[in-house]
Each structure stands twice: as structure tokens, then as C-alpha cells.
């Protein structure tokens, strides 16, 4: 018992005050990119051709955050002259097109559906389906339940059965072998239901785009309400998106 108590004191109180106070992530973290619109063409073209995800549109000078894996390659290559990544982790959007960004993202809270806020603002129960990603997106959703983030204090929980859920959170590029199970889980959730795509895999196929074994975008199977980009999306990106969309 004494040992248990000693450990309790050593560990202290660790839950974050976010969203009441801001959290500053470390410099190397790559959140929302800032894009210099008058960057020299050759640099933009070079970044577009070197981008491992082919996520850069050199003509429009935009990045598709649904495809980008935030590797930071373009930032290094352009030496910050074209792209610089900020530590702004609030990158979730409610519309796929918004992810094709020139560096600005619309405020998520302004684009959420009013009836969702009313229905789920106080209590949101989510069923997670992991569909062939790398399990990092799942890991960074899971940590929302640890003491630091403590998702439960916002009335949001991950539940064991789709029958108890208000919505589905999908990660991974939906392999051929997982498609049926995913669709059955979706159908088992009572209406009205919310669909959230987390990570570049679920949004666009991510690193696995081009493989005949996967689906390039959850929204080609079922309508998606909330897109949370990243590879994986940072737990704070997830938390920010959930709070702004539903609260």
C-alpha cells in the first residue's frame, strides 16, 4: 500500500488543461503548412516531383492534406521558400475539398452540422474500425483515453459495440479483406450516424495508394462527415477536431 501511495505522489497530476489553455507542440512537429504563393516555379516544381505522396499541385500551389503524410520533405527541399510546417495541429475539416489547401484551412467549428452538435454535443459514443493501416492512427486515438488527454471528461468515448455507438471512426486504407466487415459495422450503427476518417490512409489510401488490395478513400464507400489528416494524426489533432466539430 505504502509503495502504491509513494508512486502516486511521484506521478502527480498530469491531465492537460487543453482546450482551456493552449498547448505548444515542439518545433519539429509538422502541423498545418504555410505555403508561399510567390515561391519560384522551379522550386515548386521540384517539390511537386519529389513529394513521395504526389500531394503537391504545382500549378495551384496547393497541398492535398488528405494525401500528404507530413514527412516534411518539401519544407526541407524548398528550404522554407515554398512550404513551412507550423505547429498548428488543428487540421481537421468537414469537407474533403478543404484539405486541398493553400495554407489556410476554414475554421472547423463554422462548418459542422448543427444537428450533430445538438444530438452529440454532450455525449458522443464512437465505434472505431481499424481497416488495414499501420496501427499508428489507432494508437494515437487510443491515447486519448490516457490520463493526459482524458477524452471521457468531454463526454466522448470509444465503445465496444456498433449498437451502442453514434458514429464510426475509420482508420486505414480499407483492404479488400476488411471491406465487408467495415460496411457491416457501419450498417449496425443506428441512424443518424457520424462518419469520421482519420489519417491519410482512410482519406486517400495514404502510403498504400496504387495497391490493388486497398480503397483510395473511405468516402468512395460511405459518406464522410469529418476528415482528420495526418500519418498518424496527432492525438491533439484528433481532440481538436472532435471538440470543434461536436461541441
Amino acid at each position: 500500500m505504502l509503495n502504491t501511495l509513494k508512486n502516486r505522489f511521484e506521478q502527480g497530476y498530469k491531465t492537460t488543461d487543453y482546450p482551456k489553455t493552449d498547448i505548444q507542440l515542439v518545433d519539429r512537429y509538422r502541423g498545418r503548412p504555410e505555403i508561399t504563393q510567390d515561391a519560384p516555379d522551379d522550386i515548386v516544381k521540384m517539390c511537386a516531383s519529389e513529394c513521395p505522396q504526389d500531394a503537391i499541385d504545382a500549378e495551384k500551389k496547393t497541398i492535398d492534406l488528405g494525401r500528404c503524410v507530413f514527412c516534411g520533405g518539401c519544407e526541407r527541399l524548398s528550404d522554407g521558400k515554398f512550404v513551412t510546417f507550423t505547429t498548428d495541429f488543428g487540421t481537421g475539416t468537414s469537407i474533403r475539398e478543404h484539405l486541398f489547401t493553400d495554407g489556410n484551412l476554414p475554421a472547423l467549428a463554422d462548418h459542422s452540422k448543427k444537428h450533430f452538435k445538438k444530438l452529440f454535443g454532450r455525449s458522443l459514443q464512437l465505434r472505431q474500425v481499424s481497416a488495414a493501416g499501420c496501427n499508428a492512427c489507432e494508437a494515437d486515438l487510443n491515447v486519448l483515453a490516457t490520463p493526459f488527454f482524458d477524452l471521457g471528461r468531454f463526454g466522448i468515448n470509444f465503445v465496444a459495440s456498433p449498437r451502442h455507438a453514434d458514429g464510426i471512426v475509420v482508420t486505414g486504407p480499407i483492404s479488400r479483406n476488411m471491406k465487408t466487415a467495415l460496411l457491416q459495422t457501419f450498417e449496425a450503427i443506428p441512424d443518424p450516424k457520424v462518419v469520421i476518417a482519420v489519417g491519410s490512409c482512410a482519406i486517400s489510401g495514404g502510403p498504400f495508394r496504387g495497391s490493388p488490395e486497398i480503397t483510395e478513400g473511405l468516402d468512395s464507400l460511405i459518406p464522410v462527415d469529418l476528415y482528420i489528416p495526418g500519418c498518424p494524426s496527432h492525438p491533439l489533432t484528433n481532440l481538436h477536431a472532435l471538440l470543434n466539430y461536436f461541441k
Partner: protein
Amino acid sequence: MDTGFLKISNGCAIPRSDIPQLSFAEFRENALNIVKGGGKVVHYFGYKENGTVKLLAVLRTDELLIAGTDAPDSYPSFTNECEPFHLFEREIAEQFGIRPEGHPWLKMVRYHPNETGKPDVFDNDYSEDIPGRYDYYQVDGDEVHEVAVGPVHAGVIEPGHFRFNCIGERVFHLEIQLGYQHRGIENLLTNVDSKRLPIIVESIAGDTTVANATGMAQAVEALTQVETDTGSRIIRTIALELERIANHTGDLGALSGDVAFLPPANYFGRMRGDFLNMTLLLCGNRLGKGVVRPGGVRFTIDDEIRNELMRRINELEPQMKHVIDLLFSTPSVRSRFEGCGTVSKGDAEKLGLVGPAGRACGIQSDIRREFPTEYYQKFEIPEYYEPSGDVYARARVRADETMLSIKMIKTLLENRIETQAVDFGNFNLSPGSFVVTVNEAWRGELSHCILTGDNGEIARYKIKDPSFHNWNGLSMSLRDTGISDFPLNNKSFNLSYCGFDL
């Protein structure tokens, strides 16, 4: 004794023409002799060459050995004589339609059609989207019942199907069917621009990002004749050890949670986050995506970051030690861990268990000591194991490794780390070559192989996650165990679905 196999080195490329091509009979006999004599199967896989299928085996004794042969359409199964080949033979059957006759349990691995257009060995109809449609092993008798779980599980975890045959609470047998996470990675890697290689490899299994990226980078470096500098080797080693600690710590927390002792569950969970955040500090990604690139590392450790990492790890070391002590000194924890899910050393050897799961059954192999890469030559990794093969042993091994890894990182952070960050880019691989890399990922032996074609293209990319060896260990641990102890045993192994499914 001449085995016909060629001795090769970890991470050194050889011309494909140097790989001994044996007659199938010779290949079979020698491979079986080596493994029966205590050798381990690192790889045994098929690949296509000029329209025909060839087989290649990489075996491990105290050295790495390789030989190849032409694949017959069918052959007498190795597994009947020598169990460690069992899953490799099934994989070859699935990928290339080559039948190991008399294999004791010839069933699909990941559920996909083979690449050769030969008749499917398992009689599956792949127009159906589901791998679970298969006659599971059945136990008959009064009061025997089955419990089917998955592919979608109750928690936020990966998909897989578990089929328990039980009498009452007692499990006779657990059959595990995976394949739901299959993304076709090995084939994808042969079809993409080299700029995509690191991104795909880092996403084989997110909890093993650094080890996979390292295995790939070592292979590419061997095939481009690039030497990495000391600084980048140190940084890779730090990142590998941070990955190990974060995963072990998370699992210790989960184990504690599963025996309903909540304080350590929460403390370990929080400390896991602290270690992930150290990786975040290093490279901007909690899982280590982006650290390792062919040629070195993409992120350097300057003195400011070095001192900050040191400050954090010094703070965490005593906390970790105390929480581990708390866990293992609590009688209710001990009574649940000890004797639960025991796998004997004999079974572990036949199944080919690797890594901490193997060390917990008395198999003391550790690639960091036996085939050191990166900066591991500089460390004395102790020869150590736990003999009891139960949940306690698996937890104890992980706890001890965590403390060792903390010490290693502290040593590496003592001095300035000088290196230049490398950029991403395209590279041309030496044509007609072969390379294999083995590393001790946190789950155990992780290996990547590349065979290049005449123009330096990747003709075959073979990946073996340690989970490929270890999933059957989990099945074995459940024999004669209460079904309610499944979560505890599952956590004690914590195997990768996506790393297995590829």
C-alpha cells in the same frame, strides 16, 4: 560439413549469381539438416525469374546462410520433419501456388490469389471479400463449444479472427486467422518510385516504424554502396531503443490494466506517451516516421535536443523503476501473471519464437548481440532469458529490457552527436544483387530482403515481421488456459496484425 549454403553477412550485398543454386533434393536435405541442428529460418520464400518460380532460404546459425533452388510444382513438406518451416511453406503456397505435400495444416495465410495463376492450393473463391470463410479446426464432444471473435474487436485495435474451442471456461485450442490488414505491400514495393520506399516501409507497422525503416535503409545502402556515418548510426540506435521502450511500457500498462491493478496501468500509459514525445522531439512524429532515410537520418540531434532528451530520460528512469517494482511486488499481480499461459521451451523452439516472446521461454537469442548493426557493436547486450514461459516471464523480460534500453540511450546521449541530415531522393540500386538485413525490433527478429533485377529495379522485396513467428506462440499459450485469460496473454505477446499481414 559442406552444406551447399553460402555464408553471407548481415546487410552486405552479393551478386545474385553468387547464391548457390542447388538441386531441389540437395536444397531440401541441407536446409532441413541445418534447422534440425539448431539453425533458425530467417526466410524461406519464392520469387519469379524469367517466368519460373524459384525458392530462396536464409537460415541463421551463428552466421547467416543462403541457398536457392528451382521450385517444383509440389514437394514433400519440410514441416513434417521440421516444424519451424510451417508458416513459410504456407506462405509460398499462397503466394505462388506451390503445394507442400503432406503439410500438417495447409491453410491460407493472408487470403489472396496467388501470382502465378496456378490453381489455388486452398480452393478459395477470392471474389468473396472475406478471409474468415473457412472451416475452422473443430473439436467435437458433449459440452464443447466455440467462441468466435473478430475481425472487428471490442477495443481500438487491429482486425483479426480468433476461434476458441472450449469446454466451459477452459480453452482446448485457439485458432487465429489473419489477413484482414493485407495491403499488398511486398508487391507494391516492386512497383513504385524509389521516393515512396521509405514512406511505405515506415507504414508496414506503425509501432515498428524505426526498425522497419532501418532494415530497409541498410538494404538500400548496401545496394548503393553508401556508408553511413557514426552520428547517424547513433541516432538510429537511440530511435530504435525509444521505440522499444515505448512499446514495452505501453504493454506493461495494458497487462497491469488486465489484472485490474490500475495505478501502474495509468502510470505506464502516461510514461509511454513521454517516450513517444521524445521521439516527437527528435523528428516531429511520435512514431518515428521520418527519422531514418537511406544514407543516414533526416533529423540530427544538436546539443539542445540532446540535453533535453537527457533531462527527460533522467527524470523518467527512477519513475520507471519504481512503477516496475510496484507492479512486480504486488502479490495480486504476481498470482495472476505466474503460471498463466505457459509455453514450453520445446514448443517455442518448434514454433520458432523470436524476440522477448522467445526469451521468455528460455531462448536467449538477441539479434543486437548476435548480428549487430548500427551502433550495437559498442554495447554488451547480456545473454539473458526467463525460463518460465508464462505471462510473468514475458512481462519480466519486457521490464528488464526497458531498463536496459534506458541505460543504452543515456550512454549514447553522453557525447556530442555529429552528423549531417540526409535528404530524400531517388536512388539507383546495383543490378542483379541480393541483400538481407536482420535487426532486433522490439518484438524480435525483423528482416528485409531485396533482390534486384538486371536494371537495378526491385524484383522482389521480402519482409518478415517477428510476429510471423510468434502468433502461434499466442495460440499455444492459450492451451488449457481459461478463456478469460486471453486478454492477458494477448497483451503479453502484443503481436502485430499489420506487420504479419503486409
